[in-house]
């Protein structure tokens, strides 16, 4: 199974970027070609979401101080950079969940994805033009990868 997971919070500006990519991928692919999920909230749910999937792509927003709209590509075969790492009192970052999965032997055979540098994560805001452009860019690249593999 090929799985695409968009992560984010639809109410927090550019935090919705991963969800936006997931929706665009769902609209662009034929039913059955790829499974698309949107994950809001607890990112630890990724551990269950990707169970049984051999090939997984994850798209998340990042806030690492880079230029808004910048796209970062990752492959979980390597440890993720600090850009994908944040900590709150409850949230686990994408990098944390991947490392937890690695420690527990629960990583998919192939896990890769993209981070989109956000401009604003203010609650109630829509996505910035920079993030929207990055959403289009990531969607285009990911679709090409997916269609090549279908």
């Amino acid at each position, binding site marked *: 199974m090929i799985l695409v997971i968009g992560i984010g*919070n639809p109410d927090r500006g550019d935090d919705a970027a991963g969800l936006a990519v997931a929706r665009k991928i769902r609209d662009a692919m034929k039913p059955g070609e790829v499974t698309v999920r949107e*994950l809001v*909230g607890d990112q630890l749910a990724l551990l*269950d979401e990707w169970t049984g999937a051999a090939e997984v792509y994850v798209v998340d927003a990042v806030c690492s101080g880079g230029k808004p709209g910048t796209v970062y590509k990752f492959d979980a075969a390597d440890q993720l950079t600090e850009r994908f790492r944040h900590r*709150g009192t409850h949230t686990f970052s994408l990098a*944390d969940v991947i490392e937890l999965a690695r420690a527990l*032997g629960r990583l998919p055979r192939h896990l890769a994805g993209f981070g989109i540098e956000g401009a604003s*994560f203010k*609650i*109630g805001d829509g996505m910035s033009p920079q993030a929207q452009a990055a959403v289009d860019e990531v969607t285009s690249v990911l679709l090409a990868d997916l269609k090549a593999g279908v």
Partner: protein
Amino acid sequence: MTHGSRHISVPALARVEGEGGLEIIVSDGQVTETRLDIYEPPRFFEALLRGRQYTEPPDITARICGICPVAYQMSACQAIEDACGAQVTGEIRALRRLIYCGEWIESHALHVYLLHAPDFLGYDSGIHLARDHPAIVARGLSIKKAGNRLMEVVGGRSVHPVNVKVGGFYRAPTANELKQLVPQLEQARQDAEDTVTWVAGFDFPAFDRDYEFVSLRHPDQYPITEGSIASTSGLDITPAEYDKHFEEFQVPHSTALHSVLDGRTYLTGPMARYALNSRRLPASVRSVAHQAGLTATCTNPFKSIVVRAVELLFACDEALRLIGQYRPPDPPAIDVRPITATGYGCTEAPRGMLYHRYAITDDGTITDAKIVPPTSQNQRAIEADLRDFAAPRLAMDHETLTRECEQAVRNHDPCISCAAHFLDLRLADKTDKAVRLT
């Protein structure tokens, strides 16, 4: 490094700078002030709710928190139904308690295993703990998954359940669907009992506090979905009387409102629930609690992990009891018609009491909304903890003090989604001014 010149920072805690933090002000080697500065999404949601239909709060407020959406849904439903003069009873009431058990299991397992236990065992995070003790972390995740499954089956999905509505549920699960959860919940119950034993063996700093505990209290059940609002100082009121006793006000250092009970600092959450209701726990759960060293009241916040584990056991136990007695409600929801009125709702989120108030008109329009999450209510108690905890420990090295202060905050399981999306800890000497350290 001297006390006067040092700063403590936890840069990795902040994903977005400026949204929240914890600041400890030191003057002449004494802690003079602690400031928990948190950002508060509920204010945004209160504004968003005005003008919407009375049926919408369960879905809209569930988006406030990815960890405790059911709490928001349940307090919202209860408040709207109260305004409309409707009362949910019988099987629907039991099903609400069941889905809430799922949330307690999920949230408590997450906090105990991946957020709090690493502090006691000398690990930087749950990931580091998992590298050395994968079987233990896997046990925690397995318990959490049992909670997730329960929420999926009753709520439609585990994050932001979609099956909850004012008056009840869109669809009641079949008895067979719930019965299939029993083996997983029985395993979770055993694992939760082992969890109590495990965490009771941790080393706890001697740090007992004189809290005024506040929680719901129910005549014959450990409180989750309903009850009067009680405190260890003798308060006993209905949710409708909340605003007469609890006051929220702005403080200069925080975007969030602070809350006091008749002018006093108070604490909600597992320790409060346990102190006011431990005798309402089933005898089997009480017995495990006593074996773990808990008496009727626990006043050391570091031992909240033991209380939380006891509640985890209770939630598994209660879920199994409710499934054993389950009869699908038919219809799955009662009819709730709007009238012009104000309604009040109060339930026990995993980390404490959650209050909702809505004013609606007879065409169903919401004209006013108030939401007070537990983390906002606990802010002052957390600040007081930090002040007294840090004061005798200022001679510690930076790293140790920072870690222990973080742990002191984590004792109360503050919810970043409800009240502080990102937390950043800083310690500054007054003479250096309060510098944000990242």
